């Protein structure tokens, strides 16, 4: 929610006040609090000096994750707020009492929902502002964005490279099997992320829960204690630490259940359609010295006769620039190599918004032969939407490569494959 200040959040005009600036509009204070509790973020776009934003934060008691105070167009202010938060402008609603400002934003950014203050009193009852489930991550979202602001401020002050900065932040990425309790958050990630999202369709919580339960049943024999924690100081490679949870053999933990039976039998038996039997759901968690972002990413892998297919990959934009997607891809490659799998395939839709995903795939050595239009039955995406299958062959060297790429995490967690194992998978 991007809020105007004068006669919207404030009961008057900030600059016209004699002495004390006006107080908050009590109806808007109630709306701010209600929406915050649902994980909706608040920001300010005001034709006032920055002191107005500080005043508003004080009198409303609300946390504002961004404030644009200045005299240019509100549609530009909204663009900068979206950039600051790493979200799309289509996720923004704008509230202003001035019909001119509302018209300007509606014209320049038709994707933004534009509202008058009097409409806001009923807005908490609208479906647009009523997520069915409020996850722990969502309820803390304002605080996570404030952590993010402190992190960004520190990065501007920091002298070194981004990798050095991430190491200084004590970035810790934890990759492991998802639990049923994660299903709501996984569904939220699949629906709400765009920049690192490979699929056009969201998977509901029930779908995740089903996949996870099936994986727990069939995968229980692989269960083992979590890998030990890693201190960043022990990492020779100046990349963020990666902690691997779950079974000590990454191939068994991460990937789909190793296929049993011949490739022919699997093809005939419809391994792809019996997803519940072979799919594995990974949960990626992220924390550092500035805060704990919790569950920020997921991927769903299925075993097929020719290799593993990542049917869904979704990562929060808060994880962007923090080495998480690269760690996950490197880890998948290593896990596949250790499991003796020859190829990893990641079907992905192609949108202007998920270019970051394609950059990460390119950096990890994935290639697509050509873009195709979705539309055939069973294909991901809307009819006419472009998609491509990004593939990477997995050779024996990949296990060793990925151990290095994820910050020596493999070695610290006892993940380094035995030489014979590595050679055998090539």
């Amino acid at each position, binding site marked *: 929610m991007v809020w105007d200040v004068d006669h919207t959040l404030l009961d008057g005009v900030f600059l016209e006040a004699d002495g004390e600036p006006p107080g908050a509009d009590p109806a808007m204070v109630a709306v701010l609090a209600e929406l915050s509790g649902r994980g909706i973020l608040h920001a300010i776009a005001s034709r006032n000096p920055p002191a107005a934003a500080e005043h508003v934060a004080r009198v409303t008691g609300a946390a504002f994750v961004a404030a644009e105070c200045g005299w240019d167009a509100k549609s530009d202010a909204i663009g900068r707020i979206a950039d600051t938060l790493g979200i799309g402008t289509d996720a923004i609603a704008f509230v202003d009492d001035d019909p001119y400002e509302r018209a300007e934003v509606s014209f320049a950014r038709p994707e933004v929902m534009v509202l008058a203050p009097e409409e806001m009193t009923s807005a908490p009852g609208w479906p647009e502002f009523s997520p069915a489930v409020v996850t722990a991550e969502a309820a803390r979202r304002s605080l996570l964005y404030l952590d993010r602001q402190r992190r960004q401020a520190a990065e501007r002050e920091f002298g070194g*490279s981004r990798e050095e900065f991430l190491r200084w932040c004590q970035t810790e990425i934890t990759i492991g099997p998802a639990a049923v309790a994660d299903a709501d958050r996984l569904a939220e990630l699949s629906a709400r992320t765009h920049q*690192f999202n490979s699929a056009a369709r969201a998977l509901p919580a029930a779908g995740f829960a089903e996949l996870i339960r099936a994986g727990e049943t069939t995968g229980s024999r692989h269960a083992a204690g979590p890998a030990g924690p890693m201190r960043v100081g022990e990492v020779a490679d100046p990349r963020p630490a990666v902690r691997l949870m779950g079974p000590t053999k990454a191939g068994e933990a991460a990937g789909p259940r190793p296929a049993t039976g011949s490739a022919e039998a699997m093809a005939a038996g419809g391994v792809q359609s019996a997803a519940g039997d072979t799919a594995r759901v990974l949960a990626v968690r992220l924390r550092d010295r500035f805060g704990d972002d919790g569950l920020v990413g997921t991927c769903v892998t299925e075993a097929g006769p020719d290799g593993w297919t990542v049917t869904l990959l979704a990562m929060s934009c808060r994880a*962007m*620039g923090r080495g998480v997607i*690269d760690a996950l891809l490197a880890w998948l490659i290593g896990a596949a190599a250790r499991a003796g799998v020859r190829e990893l395939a990641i079907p992905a839709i192609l949108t202007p918004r998920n270019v970051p995903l*394609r*950059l990460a795939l*390119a950096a990890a050595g994935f290639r697509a032969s*050509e*873009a195709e239009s979705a539309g055939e039955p069973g294909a991901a995406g809307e009819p006419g939407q472009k998609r491509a299958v990004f593939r990477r062959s997995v050779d024996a060297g990949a296990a060793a490569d990925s151990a290095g790429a994820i910050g020596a995490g493999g070695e610290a967690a006892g993940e380094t494959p035995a030489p014979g194992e590595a050679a055998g998978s090539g």
Partner: protein
Amino acid sequence: MADRRPGEAAETGLELAGELRELLAELAGRPELRTADFGLPLFGTGIGLDSLTGTLLLREVHRRYGVDVAAEDLNLDALASLASLASFIETRRG
């Protein structure tokens, strides 16, 4: 349009690669990249371009030169090196 002098294309290519190198160093916050070789791989052990810096770079390239690399290059091969990115832009902006 005046005829191009021989060698002009190569010169503008170099100039463009230099601009891109400045841009990359700034976006990545890594001043040492100002002297990086134009042929050094951008991904992996060369420059280690991450997806955040890459996204910012492609956005700025689109804004400055009007070339939407992501829309035209499925595998982002243009990002092999600064030299290849410069030549990709050069051939498309006409």
